[in-house]
């Protein structure tokens, strides 16, 4: 296991370095710069600003300087928000986005897992069709539609829940979490149904039933463990995806998370912020993929054996 972990971590370094390099040069190719605005900038002002951000140096030495700073964990100062470092901005947005992602994932796993299991117990009956049809709607319904719909019903019409904000008014975290979680719940429902169907047709389930175990024990004790494996494999990348992809939900509900910074940075040509968030999120994705591999191994003895003998999954 240790060797597996070490080799995966080593593999991550060139991946992240490539991400940094490609992003660094790609944002510089884009037309326009961080200091362009609708009002013409006096050349002297522009020169002074560029000097403060090292933009007056040759591109390659800027790149090397950036790598140097990065090695010390410094993402540099933001262009758009003078007086704030990118570290600080990520630090402010990440806990919010992570919390939102976590709730969304919890909702997705609970509802999706439950729906999938329920559907798998009686395949091709209404008990299967109804949750699966709902799941299909969930997959097809984009968050930018679901969010405003939920707001309209629960926020404006019923006045049950706040329509925006995060942690300002009790209950304002519910709608965004559901909105973000819905699509993932739908995926998880389909994954867990497929996984459960496969497991429930296995010999050992038949044995369990033959022993006279009650059905719920068969499902919960013997079925779930194998049936939810595909879901576990999906959770790691899903969480990273939630972090990077929560932009739409954050915008609809005015949530001060990382996703908004991430997208705004590109529009603003906030070079350091684009780089910082991209590098940070890609590192997270690499780590979460690794984490879900480890988790899968702990649930699946065959994989565990493979890792222990040095084989690759």
């Amino acid at each position, binding site marked *: 296991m240790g060797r597996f972990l070490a080799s995966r971590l080593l593999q991550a370094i060139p991946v992240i370095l490539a991400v940094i390099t490609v992003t660094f040069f790609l944002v510089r190719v884009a037309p326009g710069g961080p200091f*362009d*605005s609708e009002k013409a900038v006096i050349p002297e002002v522009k020169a002074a600003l560029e000097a403060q951000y090292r933009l007056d140096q040759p591109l390659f030495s800027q790149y090397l300087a950036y790598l140097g700073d990065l090695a010390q964990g410094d993402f540099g100062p933001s262009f758009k928000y*003078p007086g704030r470092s990118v570290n600080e901005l990520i630090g402010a947005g990440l806990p919010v986005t992570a919390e939102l992602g976590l709730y969304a994932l919890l909702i997705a796993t609970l509802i999706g897992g*439950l729906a999938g299991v329920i559907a798998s117990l009686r395949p091709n009956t209404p008990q299967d069709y109804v949750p699966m049809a709902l799941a299909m709607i969930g997959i097809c319904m984009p968050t930018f539609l679901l969010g405003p719909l939920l707001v309209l019903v*629960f926020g*404006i019409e019923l006045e049950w829940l706040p329509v925006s904000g995060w942690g300002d008014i*009790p209950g304002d975290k519910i709608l965004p979490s559901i909105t973000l979680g819905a699509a993932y719940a739908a995926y998880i429902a389909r994954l867990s149904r497929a996984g459960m169907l496969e497991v429930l047709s296995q010999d050992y389930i038949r044995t369990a039933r033959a022993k006279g175990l009650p059905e719920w024990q068969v499902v919960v004790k013997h079925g779930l463990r194998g049936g939810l494996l595909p879901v576990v494999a999906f959770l790691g990348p899903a969480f990273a995806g939630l972090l990077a992809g929560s932009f739409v939900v954050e915008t609809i509900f005015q949530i001060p998370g990382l996703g908004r910074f991430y997208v705004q940075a590109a529009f603003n040509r906030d070079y350091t912020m684009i780089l910082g968030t991209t590098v940070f999120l890609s590192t997270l994705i690499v780590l979460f993929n690794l984490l879900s591999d480890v988790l899968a191994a702990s649930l699946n003895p065959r994989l565990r054996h493979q890792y222990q003998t040095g084989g690759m999954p």
Partner: protein
Amino acid sequence: MFFSRSSLYGLGVVLAMTLGLSACTGGESNVERGNRDQTFHYGNGSEPQGLDPHVVTGVPENHLLRALFEGLAVKNPYTLEPEPGVAQSWEFSEDRRQITFHINPEARWSNGDPVTADDYVWSWMRALHPDTGNLYSYMLFPLVNAEEFFTGKIDDFAEVGVKAPNPLTLVVTLKEPTPYFIQLMDHYSTFAVHRPTLEKHGKFTDRFTKWTRVENIVSNGPFVLEEWLLNRRITMKKNENYWNADFVRLNRVVFYPTENLVSEERGFRAGQLHYTQSIPLDKIPVYQAMEDSPYVQEPYLGSYFYLLNTQRPPLDDARVRRALSMSVDRDTLINTVLQKSAVPSYSITPPGTLGYHPPKTFSYDIEEARRLLAEAGYPNGEGWPGIEIIYNTLEAHRKIAVAIQQMWKDALNIEVTIANQEWKVYLDAVATMNFDVGRRGWIGDYVDPNNFLDLYLSDGGNNNTGYANPVYDDLILNKAPQAPNREERFKVFYEAERMLMEEMPIIPIYIYTSKHLIHPSVCGLPANLMDSLNLRYVWLDPERRSPSEPCT
């Protein structure tokens, strides 16, 4: 049994969650609570870049900075005329080139230090220092030698036209009479900052210091910073050290970064905001139809127009430019596409800027437009080489471009293509004049025709049309400043603008309006041409249920 036991269990969980949802309901809204304790919940458009008045630019920043700081003079929100701020009075010299400001001896920084004339000398040195990189440094260029100091031609700030003979007197010397200079004292780029605080946190020209953080900032306005949660809210409370604190009735103001118009409008409906920065276009008819509507729309000191690249054929011919402008049916455009939320314009300067009314040199006239186009060599559009309109990606810009494209096709039988560009790409195209026709907006920084007309000086940085006319330059640069009074000065501007509109390097389309939803409890916040917010005047009247009722 149709449902198994496990599915019943699942049903229980879902039920419990639903109950959990409904448990979080009810409670007092922001607006109700705010009305009770005089806390104003204000939709501010977006997260500010920062709070350093010599570093940041932008409308949301303007609202925040003018609450935290106060200039020598401030705009009265009802008349827009300057009234005492840090300076209790001022007087002009005979030749109107020297202004003496008398600082209010009661003016204090939020830590209790007195505000002095020296604070201004030092702060203006900072605002003009080339290393500060102040985008609005030109606001102080009317001062003698300010531009020279800024561009590095002189190093000694003592040569710049601002002196402090004693702590309560500030003497300003101008290059030439500048009637709007007093107005500029309410622009944040001319505000004083607290020297000891800045010097404590780094080099005075440094953009990256932490002096504006809640725990560090010292300011001199009606409010002080209490809380700054990034992308969430900025809370200010009343500044007890403010010289005019007795006049201030609000206890707190909470500014929200309401970037998403749709969410902002929903927040207003749900009682989370007293005031919205804007409103989605498609909601305007709904609110306009309401009785006692919270919707407030007023002309705004901003022009929306199309730039024409006068150096590229066929737009290098003034007749073509006039033909294009005459065949835009502005009334139809505004009534349909813009939901009556704008005012048609036939000149660049918005009408009514301190009594100035621009000339109207043309009207919607298809026949005349066709004649001009034929005269220029394109009868009924024959031989037309084709042009392209560029605009930055935004639904409203697209709709306008599509409508104008069709109007030109119908009226003149000419082919026009439209192309949207991402914001920075569009800025680059405009700055390098890589376009035929380009969308443009200009918002005035001060109420004076000069703010719009000096755009089209031959070497104006924001000209972007290639238009150059020495006679026009002379009118704006020499004749107008020399005019003995406002009336004569406006006559010069009128003549210049008439000339500009004959040459037509731009096609004026409409004058902006400010559009807000304002809760009836909000008092002392009149609509004005600059959409200028002066929080000193604002208070909340919980008893007021409709905008037609008087405030108490």
